[in-house]
């Protein structure tokens, strides 16, 4: 008998169907992957399981008994525990307090017990977290780990994970997958939403594919391969986007060494502090040349965010120089960065900095240049036609799905990310700084973005590509720098960047650097 049965689940938002007639059985003791394109309805379905959304029709049964819909408390009592795509943490609480909030009960706050349980579990999972730190001061990866701990500590019997690994390092991700297998082995039921097919094959027993709100197939893992899944997700008759690996072929990587190339970005002896005034970036120097992609690898929280913000003009460096096309970028003047230096920036947190969630798609697309022609017309009036045209193009180019004419808050996570990318890539930048740009994107969109990035380099632009995913970096970057403890511990050419050497550099073990400023000085 199935542990969990979904029967005829349907959900509309403002009359637009997000899910229709989803019927599905899930066996106990299995990891069940749920796949689908951005906006396919995965999160909606998971939110229905966790009681956050009330389905318009259909029932959820646990061991044959109906779970009353639309009540998170009841769902928790039934053993459901969900890791949300957009984290549900209290920013001003510490990690331990967030865990205590979920575990609850007792006379005191339960923070001490929560912290102990959280630490023990983190050790098991190989997660590095500082549970005494406030969430708002944590790097995204650590927040994600807290969100995971919060649910697992509670001892959920049905664990629902909505894209839990999008900001984890490969090591953490694989350790999480192993943990999920152990949970399944212990008889728990795991639902895993992910865009990473590798994770599906590593952890799942069965896989369900959603397409535009409908269930297309549920298959045992043995019965599918990557291409098959991709085809199921996209559906027949739709032009499948090129496979990820094709990206690299769009623009052959320039030969190593850039003796004749023109540097677009020059960073010299840059020191940047974090919000608390502690040094986060220490003496970083590097160059990116025309047509080049420099990847930055490393466990997040090692200064990548501060580096990106400093380069984007959002954070005033303590010292050091940043030059774009040979012109010094004045610190703390984001407008200059946008208008003069043509630096595009995809921030790591689309909800905090990337989007105005309460504005519609077209308004989010003019966010960067609303105060300049052509968007700004006479008397400061905004050209709405132009904004609308931008939206139309973005929707077409990036295949954005959902109600783009309403507040973008309602869009699925992946589709929100596509809007950010559409805006940042749409201005022919000279330099693109991208932090985790494919976070939450589906397979096809990821490939598309990577192709776009490489196409950008064909115009002579330079790209700084920050990611915790080594595979992705190896696909797009010409060289990969590793950041550890605020320093660049080494820069490797793509071909040298094997897991071992990268891992060593991440550990902070310095190695003779191939830093090109050093080369230039010689």
């Amino acid at each position: 008998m199935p542990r969990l049965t979904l029967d005829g689940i349907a959900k509309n938002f403002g009359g637009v169907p997000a899910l229709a007639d989803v019927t599905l059985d899930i066996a106990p003791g299995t990891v069940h992957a749920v796949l689908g394109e951005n906006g396919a309805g995965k999160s909606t379905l998971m939110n229905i399981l966790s009681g956050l959304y009330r389905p318009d029709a259909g029932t959820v049964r646990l061991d044959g008994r109906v779970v009353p819909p639309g009540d998170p408390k009841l769902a928790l009592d039934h053993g459901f525990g969900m890791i949300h795509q957009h984290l549900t943490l209290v920013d001003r609480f510490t990690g331990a307090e967030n865990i205590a909030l979920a575990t609850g009960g007792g006379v005191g706050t339960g923070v001490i017990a929560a912290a102990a349980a959280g630490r023990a579990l983190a050790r098991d999972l190989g997660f590095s977290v500082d549970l005494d730190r406030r969430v708002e001061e944590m790097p995204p990866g650590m927040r994600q780990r807290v969100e995971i701990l919060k649910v697992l500590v509670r001892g959920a019997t049905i664990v629902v994970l909505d894209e839990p690994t999008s900001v984890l390092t490969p090591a953490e991700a694989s350790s999480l997958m192993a943990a999920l297998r152990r949970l399944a082995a212990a008889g728990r039921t795991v639902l895993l939403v992910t865009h990473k097919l590798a994770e599906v094959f590593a952890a799942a027993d069965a896989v369900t594919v959603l397409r535009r709100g409908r269930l297309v197939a549920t298959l045992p893992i043995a019965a599918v391969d990557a291409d098959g899944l991709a085809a199921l997700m996209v559906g027949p008759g739709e032009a499948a986007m090129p496979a990820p690996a094709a990206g690299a072929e769009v623009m052959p990587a320039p030969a190593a060494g850039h003796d004749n190339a023109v540097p677009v970005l020059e960073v010299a002896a840059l020191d940047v502090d974090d919000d608390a005034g502690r040094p986060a970036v220490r003496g970083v120097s590097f160059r990116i040349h025309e047509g080049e992609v420099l990847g930055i690898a490393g466990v997040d929280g090692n200064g990548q965010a501060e580096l990106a913000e400093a380069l984007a003009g959002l954070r005033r460096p303590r010292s050091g120089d940043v030059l774009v096309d040979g012109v010094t970028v004045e610190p703390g003047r984001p407008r200059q960065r946008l208008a003069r230096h043509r630096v595009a920036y995809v921030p790591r947190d689309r909800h905090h900095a990337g989007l105005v969630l309460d504005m519609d798609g077209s308004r989010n697309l003019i966010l960067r240049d609303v105060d300049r022609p052509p968007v700004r017309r006479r008397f400061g009036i905004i050209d709405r036609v132009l904004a609308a045209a931008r939206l139309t193009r973005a929707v077409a180019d990036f295949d954005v799905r959902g109600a783009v004419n309403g507040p973008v808050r309602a869009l699925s996570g992946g589709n929100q990310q596509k809007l950010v990318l559409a805006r940042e890539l749409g201005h022919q930048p000279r330099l693109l700084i991208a932090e985790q740009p494919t976070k939450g994107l589906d397979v096809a969109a990821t490939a598309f973005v990577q192709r776009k990035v490489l196409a950008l380099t064909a115009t002579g632009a330079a790209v700084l590509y920050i990611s915790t995913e080594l595979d992705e970096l190896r696909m797009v970057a010409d060289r990969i720098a590793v950041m550890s403890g605020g320093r660049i511990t080494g820069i490797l050419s793509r071909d040298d960047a094997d897991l071992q050497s990268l891992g060593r550099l991440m550990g902070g073990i310095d190695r003779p650097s191939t830093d090109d400023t050093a080369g230039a000085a010689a």
Partner: protein
Amino acid sequence: MIDLFTNPTALADLFATMLRLSVPLVFAAIGGVFSERAGMVNISLEGSMILGAFGASWGAIAGGSAGFGVVAGALAGGLLGAGFGIATVYAGANQIVAGIGANLLGLGVAAFLHRLTATGRAAENRVPGFADITIPGLADIPIVGKALFATDPMTWAAILAVPLAALVLARTGLGLRLKAVGENPRAADVAGLSVRLYRLGAVTLCGMLAGLGGAVLVLSQVFLFTEGMTAGKGFIAVAAVILGRWSPLGAAAACLLFGLSDAIQLRLQFANTDVPYQLFVVLPYLAAILTLVGLVGRSRAPQASGQFYRRESR
């Protein structure tokens, strides 16, 4: 005037005045802290205070003792808080507008019922209030002794309420959950907490505490109810919550600041008859603003402050 700050009797007196002016504010402001920490901007404290004052007067007269007054005052204030909560938490009414409406309602109902139940002569409506209780020995401590240890139970209740509220917020699961509701209702919701119940509870508690603040005026200070007797104290309590950075201790300190500057200005007036009295009247407000300017660091309201929470909106 130097006399005012050097003469021990005058100082003791100043201290006592400060305390008495602050106590009603302290109750209301602590209520405000609970409400605000749960994400509810509640400017209906004034309405709850006046209803509390009326309830205290009615209860004490009907029940024949101050104890009944305390209960009735808290209930009356809490009722308005609950009404405000239903309008804002369930119907989603804007908290500021609903607060203004609730204030009108509170002022109206208190006066309306007072007219129904009492005559227009003060002496005929005198309320059996609390008598001062003197603790021998302690009451003789210079300056603070008399004010703190020869006083009525409501003052002690206020003094106890402050650390108690701080303790609840900082050291209990209830406090943790309440703060979570105010910071990130979505996080609280997925943790299985009923955001609506917590918020409704917080504003009801807030109303009750504000009601107690009103009750203090009647039961410990003037022993009668009069229309409009709160005279804007509820708004000062709202200011104290923010001035005190949403913490019970801070809010209480802010109330003391208001009380102190009012106590001082009432005394400074006689010695400086050539200075326009308006300057003295605004002293508490100026002191509060200057204190804010002097404090270092930014104060942050709870993140979801004033926001209506709806489960299915993202």
